[in-house]
């Protein structure tokens, strides 16, 4: 990726966030280039969601500066659909496109859910709900997708299908993606760059230049896996 030739989509400088006297983020710096897939891993409670919320402007209590170029879309770990609105309305709400219904239908078709447009969210499976959530983020034609452990609650098989879907959507629309995950393999399968969050800042960073789809037993990935796991404090 041509990370240095273009203005970054995300630029965060000296980000800080404390809850009480506990500093969760501390002088954190981060840049994400156009179209780059960045995976953010870290132990539970290390501040991954806090960082994402800071970038999305959802947290008024952060210090430092964070700028995001253009539109962004966000998908939460809980699909967070409005239970009393149809699938279509969930994607359409807040869309400012000229024909929001058409745009919403197109986004649902892209995630393979055109047959469910009129369904209530409660009738969807976990994976389907996450796809609606992805469609909702995508319908805004974002330059940046913020994904907060969107597949964490899914079974392993569904998760693999979702990875393929994300890659397909990325190839078509080329948004930058910041994928928060606790799953090292997910990061290795998708990311151009893997960041490890520790002690409130980016404690470690590895680039992966391999083509996707990747074989999980590729020697480079095997080595990086144990490297990342030891960064996370898991000894093998």
């Amino acid at each position, binding site marked *: 990726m041509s990370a240095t030739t273009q203005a970054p989509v995300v630029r965060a400088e000296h980000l800080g966030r404390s809850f009480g006297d506990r500093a969760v983020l501390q002088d954190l710096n981060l840049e994400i280039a156009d179209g780059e897939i960045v995976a953010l891993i870290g132990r539970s409670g290390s501040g991954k*969601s806090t960082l994402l919320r800071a970038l*999305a402007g*959802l947290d008024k209590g952060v210090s430092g500066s964070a700028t995001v170029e253009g539109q962004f879309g*966000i998908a*939460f*770990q*809980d*699909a*967070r*659909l*409005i*239970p*009393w*609105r149809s699938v279509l*309305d969930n994607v359409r*709400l*807040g869309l*400012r496109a000229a024909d929001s219904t058409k745009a919403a239908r197109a986004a649902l078709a892209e995630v393979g859910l055109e047959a469910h447009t*009129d*369904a*209530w*969210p*409660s*009738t*969807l*499976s*976990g994976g389907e*709900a996450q796809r609606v959530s992805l469609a*909702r983020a995508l319908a805004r034609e974002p330059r940046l997708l913020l994904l*907060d*452990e969107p597949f964490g*609650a*899914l079974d392993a098989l569904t998760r693999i299908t979702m990875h393929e879907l994300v890659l397909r959507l990325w190839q078509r629309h080329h948004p930058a993606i910041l994928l928060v995950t606790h799953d090292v393999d997910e990061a290795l399968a998708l990311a151009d760059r893997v960041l490890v969050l520790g002690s409130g800042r980016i404690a470690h960073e590895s680039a992966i230049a391999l083509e996707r789809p990747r074989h999980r037993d590729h020697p480079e990935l095997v080595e990086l896996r144990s490297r990342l796991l030891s960064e996370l404090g898991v000894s093998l």
Partner: protein
Amino acid sequence: MSATQPNSRALGALGVGAAAAGRATRLRLRGPGLQRLISPVVLLILWQLIHVFNLVSVKKLPPPTTVLSTAWNLITTNEPAYGTLQGALGASLERMVIGFALGAGVALILALVSGLSRWGENTFDPILQMIRTVPLFGLVPVFIVWFGIGELPKILLIALAALIPLYLNAFAGIRGVDHRLWELADVLGLSRSERLRHVILPGALPQTLVGLRLSLGTAWLALVVAEQVNTNAGLGYMINQATQFLSNNVIFVALAVYTILGLATDWLVRLLERRALAWRRGLLT
């Protein structure tokens, strides 16, 4: 953010009166719906049987058939002492509709203002919490002193009875809307009116409907109490007259009509719940 899948279902269950959910589901099932009729019918038959076997004096407790025939007489003949049953029903219904509409309207407006703003909450909520603790029917003498013995004190008593439960539940409903959905509304960039229409009001609806059901219950009670005081029309007036003429039959007719009215409004609210909360059952409308 640690909900388990399917998350939309977990979201839907938050801040929602469990009673409402149970009722809505039961109503859908035809078999159990019929089943629910069995015990009341058996009770009616037992009541009639008490008299077949002469177990209780007819004067103290008239059998259902007598209550029915008395009702028929009251409908078909205009007795000078009682008027007609439909006339009494009309007068009572009018009081109820006016009083309830007034109380419910004020309750919903106050719940919106308090629910959507801090200043609203700080202004109105303390007053309503205070009123809540006043024994409603203890106010009857005060209302008579203040507003006389006409329709006004009766309507105000019904309005106040409807106001409190509906306000409390609608307010709790608005505040109980999952904060994650408020956040979602921020992310989606919803306007104030979109937020209200698509997130807040529908989210507050289940709890508000529970409040509606409760407030209808207390409003019917208030009607009965209010009508026993210095009335010259209505079901309560009929009961007062019947007490003077020692006609237990007429009293039972009036009580039966009250009961039917209460059941009918309860049924209406359930119907409303069924339609408005269809999303919970996952059926398409």
